[in-house]
């Protein structure tokens, strides 16, 4: 039973990061190949605090979120100001992620490539509580005027600007919110696994986050979050199939792209289905 709980907890942690990327990619329409970096910053910032200075997790978690949010300004301000097109932005943030990995591997405070052994603080209460709060806050945020403005930017940046939207400010806001959520996911991850290493936060992880958002559906919160759960839990459930589980994961992605190119819940939410509202 412990094993199943562990898988579910990891899936929930992953859901928070995917939720973050859904705000940025699904709603604001910019692709990112570097969001694992924000998960990593959240993990390391909180991990360093609890490891070196015995900071209580109650403070380390928000510190990890803040560190991820602030660091997103470093990459966001120059690239979003230059109005890089979506694909160029994805490459720029990929570079940011790789640069971060190199930094983490060479700093002594992070214990370099050997990784950092932190205490296991985040129990199910922390994880489920953070997930619930994140979902609620994100839903409110996307229901507010910001959600509408983000979607307008995704639909047509030029028209959005001519509707009086400050593209730079709104895209940056979207990035900071999404990075902050990824930071929360990272802080929880670090103190769940009790061990973090720079290689845990590279392009592979960023790609998996993006795959969950796309497969879950652009413009949806519930779709990506459900898919994030499935994508984390499925490889574990299929462990008995041994070597077939990774091809199965790939096959699932391909099938989604062929038969549901808009993703599981493209442009709608789970609640819409129950209300029977067709869009």
């Amino acid at each position, binding site marked *: 039973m412990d094993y199943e709980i562990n898988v579910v907890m990891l899936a929930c942690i992953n859901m928070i990061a995917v939720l973050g990327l859904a705000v940025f990619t699904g709603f604001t329409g910019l692709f990112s190949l570097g969001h694992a970096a924000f998960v990593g910053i959240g993990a390391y910032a909180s991990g360093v605090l609890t490891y070196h200075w015995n900071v209580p997790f109650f403070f380390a978690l928000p510190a990890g979120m803040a560190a991820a949010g602030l660091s997103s300004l470093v990459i966001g301000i120059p690239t979003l100001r230059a109005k890089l097109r979506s694909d160029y932005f994805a490459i720029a943030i990929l570079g940011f992620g790789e640069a971060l990995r190199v930094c983490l591997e060479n700093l002594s405070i992070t214990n370099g490539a050997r990784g950092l052994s932190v205490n296991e603080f985040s129990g199910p209460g922390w994880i489920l509580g953070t997930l619930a709060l994140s979902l609620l806050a994100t839903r409110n945020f996307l229901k*507010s*005027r*910001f959600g*509408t403005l983000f979607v*307008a930017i995704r639909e047509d940046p*030029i028209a959005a600007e001519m*509707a*009086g939207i400050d593209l730079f400010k709104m895209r940056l806001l979207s990035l900071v919110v999404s990075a902050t959520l990824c930071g929360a996911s990272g802080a929880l991850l670090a103190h769940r696994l009790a061990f973090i290493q720079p290689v845990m936060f590279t392009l592979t992880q960023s790609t998996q986050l993006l795959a969950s958002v796309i497969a879950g559906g652009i*413009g949806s919160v519930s779709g990506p979050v459900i898919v994030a759960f499935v994508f984390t839990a499925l490889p574990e459930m299929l462990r008995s199939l041994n070597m077939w589980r990774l091809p199965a994961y790939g096959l699932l992605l391909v099938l989604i792209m062929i038969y549901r190119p808009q993703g599981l819940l493209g442009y709608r939410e789970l609640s819409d289905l129950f209300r029977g509202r067709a869009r």
Partner: protein
Amino acid sequence: MTAPGPTSLLEVRGLSRSFGGIRAVEALSFDVARGGIMGLIGPNGAGKTTVFNLITGVYRPTAGTIFLNGIDLTKKRPHEVVRAGIARTFQNIRLFNRMTCLENVMTPLLARGDAALGAFFRTPFVRGEERKARETALAVMEDMGLADTAYRLASTLPYGLQRKLEIARALACGLLVQGPRLVLLDEPAAGMNEAETRELGEVILKTQKDFDVTMMLIEHHINLVMNVCTRIVVMERGTLLAEGSPHAIRSDERVIAAYLGRKGKNEHGR
């Protein structure tokens, strides 16, 4: 700062823009009087849309100035230009397709909202602001005869209504602006037949009066231009060819040679 004349809303002075070696607009000067509809016509490639893009801050001019009611717009970014009182539509309709028509019209109103951190908690202030934007947008749609499309996705509207919706969104941009407003329409009748074009002309005249805005209109349907415009600027190869009342433009030899063609004579009998 140049003080604008009492009646001129937009002052364009010596406006130039080149792309590489191509001079798209060169030393263009004209005034748009407050109230009324100014037509901007000329052959394809004359630089009409570039002028709109320069006025709205999409492009930076290589030289020249643009003043709206005494405010220098020359170095402003597009969203700042919108907030100063200029809104526009596009040659190829640009709607927010995956949003409802109502949300399309609400967007410019929400863009100027104040809700910030409260957005995470759905505070009463946030809800109030959204309700106000919704009511204002619905009123605009009512005036434009778009009320029953409010909850449809913008992409599902027929072409003519999409044009109308785009105009409604442009009008909404000006609702929170203090002072006079200018709406730029870039070929609104493109792709319309004669009947649709005539109807569009009525919509343009009506909204110009109802919303008390000044309009600028790029258009190739010469009948529409002659019917609705109070004044016309003719461009050719990036420069000003002629300016005057519709009547004067119609009989201007240079305009006939460069753009209207001899056939224009037949239209006198209309």
